[in-house]
């Protein structure tokens, strides 16, 4: 992607449904992958591999937890179902867009978003749910024909305002739009027709971004989402367990009302989705790009967002999932469980990184595995995992832009393990963190979230230094040669973790001097007129709420 000003970025896209033969090939890869896993499993759990039973159990837990999640993902791929383009509406639906503004969010961003909302062709009313107590926001709303609702002091931040706005409005269909997302004019054309089905509770569309070229963090953060909004959610859609996550979810008012309004919490969208599923509503995931928004550009903002989500998602796992258990289908339970446990990787990553240090400092070894044997049994599984990962990329929303191994995303995920871990611990302790909207503009400075990475690097360098000293001056020469493979093998193992900190370090240093821009100001909606069609009409302002 050269620049977000490239017109192809602003083109509406829809994933083509898989044909039976590409599905068959995918199934073949999954069969081969599962056989490889069975072979690996059969090899892994052998008594002679156990060095220390406790550590072996921990290591096995980490390894097989990851494999389990991967298999769940493969199974969801097999169920991939791309909904056809929605049919014509049986009757006209009244439609509202809710977008919220909070103190500190840049005014010019609302100027752009509301302008884009006004251009959406299907007749609708846009509402700005505002608690900034800043009169300029009202002016911007009025400039673009949006209804300005002042909603100050409601508990639950965004969700609280939405619930209050629900009381003041009557539209049957409500799009909850994040204010950093610029919707395309055909947004509702790609969504509304599905609501012909009276049992449909919500339609979630893909979240796509436009500012990822602006920094390493932004690229990496976007890479982490591509697969999720492509094959993963398409697969979950096949089992009717697509989740509403983040922006751009279009709800049926009745569905929201049936659960007593939009869910409140750090993962409010997921809470809402699980409750709606719990009430027996259907959902659709439409793999279409009909808007583009912002992804955090600096490491600090990204980590704050991740902390919020990891705390929130654990709340779904511990509080919501048990409550909704009865109303959910088996696939929905599994799906919410899998998503709810995503951030536990912060904990498993920590354990995984500790292993080489346990050996180097204390001689604790979890497993007696021959490296070559491990490689021979592990590599086929890894091969099929990567092959499947790449194969399903044909069902990404924007393959040309999104394809790849997503190594930046992996680096960034690694850098975030302390954040995930913190979210996990906070959930166990039931400690709250405040709801703050993610920064829309890059924040300069060395974030405190980079500190664990630097600590990790310091521990690694100190350890290598001690190992070298130990071997030069203290290890008996009669032991040197026979122990060198094992010791340096473990140092190599620790080096993997060390190298994985480089991505986060680079992101932190880049963020330290990042130029804070307002990318939305550079977008001229008229310039994409052939992509984003001219608005048909601007809805008249509804005076009654003003």
């Amino acid at each position, binding site marked *: 992607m050269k620049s977000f000003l490239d017109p192809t970025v602003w083109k509406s896209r829809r994933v083509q449904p898989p044909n039976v033969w590409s599905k068959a090939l*995918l199934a073949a890869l*999954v069969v081969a992958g599962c056989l490889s896993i069975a072979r690996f499993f059969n090899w892994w759990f052998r008594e002679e591999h156990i060095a220390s039973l406790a550590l072996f159990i921990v290591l096995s837990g980490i390894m097989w937890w990851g494999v389990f999640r991967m298999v769940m993902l493969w199974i969801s791929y097999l169920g991939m179902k791309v909904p056809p383009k929605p049919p014509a509406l049986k009757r006209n639906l009244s439609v509202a867009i809710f977008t919220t503004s909070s103190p500190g969010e840049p005014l010019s961003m609302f100027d752009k978003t509301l302008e884009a909302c006004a251009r959406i062709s299907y007749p609708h009313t846009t509402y700005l749910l505002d608690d900034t107590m800043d009169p300029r926001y009202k002016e911007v709303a009025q400039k673009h024909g949006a209804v300005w609702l002042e909603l100050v002091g409601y508990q639950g931040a965004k969700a609280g305002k939405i619930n209050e706005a629900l009381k003041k409005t009557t539209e049957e269909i409500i799009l909850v739009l994040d204010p950093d997302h610029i919707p395309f004019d055909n947004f509702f054309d790609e969504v509304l027709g599905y609501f012909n089905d009276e049992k449909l509770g919500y339609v979630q569309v893909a979240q796509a971004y436009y500012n990822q070229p602006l920094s390493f963090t932004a690229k990496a953060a976007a890479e982490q989402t591509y697969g999720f909004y492509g094959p993963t959610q398409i697969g979950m859609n096949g089992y009717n367990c697509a989740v509403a996550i983040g922006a751009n979810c279009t709800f049926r008012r009745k569905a929201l009302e049936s659960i007593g309004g939009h869910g409140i919490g750090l993962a409010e969208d997921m809470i809402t989705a699980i409750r709606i599923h719990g009430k027996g509503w259907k959902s659709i995931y439409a793999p279409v790009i009909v808007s583009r928004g912002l992804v955090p550009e600096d490491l600090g903002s990204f980590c704050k967002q991740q902390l919020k989500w990891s705390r929130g998602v654990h709340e779904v796992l511990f509080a919501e999932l048990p409550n909704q258990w009865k109303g959910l289908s088996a696939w929905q339970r599994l799906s919410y469980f899998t998503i709810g446990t995503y951030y536990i990787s912060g904990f498993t990553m920590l354990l995984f990184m500790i292993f080489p240090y346990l050996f180097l400092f204390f001689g604790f070894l979890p497993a007696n595995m021959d490296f*070559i044997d491990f490689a021979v049994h592990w590599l086929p599984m890894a091969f099929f995992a990567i092959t499947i990962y790449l194969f399903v990329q044909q069902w990404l929303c924007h393959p040309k832009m999104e394809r790849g191994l997503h190594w930046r995303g992996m680096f960034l995920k690694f850098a975030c393990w302390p954040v995930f871990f913190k979210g996990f611990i906070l959930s166990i302790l039931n400690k709250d963190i405040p709801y703050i909207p993610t920064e829309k503009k890059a924040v300069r400075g060395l974030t405190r979230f980079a500190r664990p990475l630097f600590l990790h690097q310091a521990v690694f360098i100190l350890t290598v230094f001690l190992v070298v000293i130990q071997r*030069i001056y203290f290890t008996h020469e*009669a*032991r*040197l040669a026979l*122990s060198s493979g094992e010791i340096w093998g473990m140092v190599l193992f620790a080096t993997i973790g060390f190298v994985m900190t480089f991505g986060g370090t680079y992101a932190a240093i880049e963020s330290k001097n990042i130029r804070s821009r307002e990318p939305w100001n550079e977008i001229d909606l008229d310039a994409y007129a052939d992509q984003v069609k001219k608005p048909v009409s601007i809805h008249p302002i509804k005076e009654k709420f003003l």
Partner: protein
Amino acid sequence: MKTVVIRFTAVITAVILGIVFFLAMVYLGNKSKGPFEDILSGVDAGIARTENQMLNTRQRRSAALEWFNAYRNNKLYINTIDTLLLGAYDDATQESYENIIQLEDSLKTKLPVVSIYTAWGSKKDQVFPLLRAQALYDLGSIPMITWEPWLNDFDPLYFVHNNSGNADVNKGGLKAIAEGKYDAYIDKWAVDAKKFGMPFFLRWGHEMNDPYRYPWGEQNNLPEDYINAWRHVVNRFRAVGADNAIWIWSPHPAYATYAQFYPGHEFVDWIGFTGLNYGTVATWSQWWAFPDIINNAYNELSLYGKPIMVAEFGSLAVGGKRKTWFKEAFESIYSKYPAIKAVVFFHAANDNSISYKALDWSFKQDTAVLSALRPVIQKK
């Protein structure tokens, strides 16, 4: 109906294709396992070598054994050695040779020969022990490898003799070796040994004349099969140029049939035999002094004109006085057995090889034995 056919075909195709993909990966994995293992063991040895070169800051054991360099670096010199070499085997050396060092310290000497054992087979640890050989060389010693032709561990996929439905592959095993059924293994081992590059003792198929002990014994094979197998193995080494092996032919001294198994002067460099006193540990044993054990064997085998090695030398503590046994043994070597040029202590603390209970041959804690040994081993 058409959809059903297409779907059915798709599912079947997926399953078959999946199995084919999987088998292809397994095949590739098995094919690349050998080369990968070679690379890895090369890397292992390389790292150990680099580390060794970087450690010149310390007092090295090899400095104390410098006098031995002239011998161990030249096969001709060691085959015509004019002094008595001492050596040891210790059974707890998987991670470190510190036990050998401790034995040396308690004997107040350095041991030029260090003995290790390795078996035939297709497993990863049944290749030439490059890392160990190199480690011992770097410590200043010469490796002595006892190489045992057990045939059970070969992969029947690659070794037809293991595949032919024999109830016991060891029956007629030596004939199969002589016929070249295990050449792939022998050649690989020999090539790796050649890569090691330095002379080392190689004791192949020891105690072949004991019909109760090892599968390559008389119970499974004819003596001429042993000779043919021995010559075949030596010839394979010569064919690949692994001339650094010093061949020790090592019969059991208690069975006077040695001559029937002797492969011939041009195939043997040293003659070895065991000198182990089991004391009264079992019903079949009694306290034998060292000359009682080896006298007949020595008298016959010393006529072959080869240097002789007591390849396993030791006494248990049950049934007599160990310190006297050791003292008299050395005295007899100096006075009566001048052809003996090497003595390798069998210093296993946990020997499970012969009876239902573990035997302890170690003596590094036995002060009586140590004080008896110290003066006699110095007297060169």
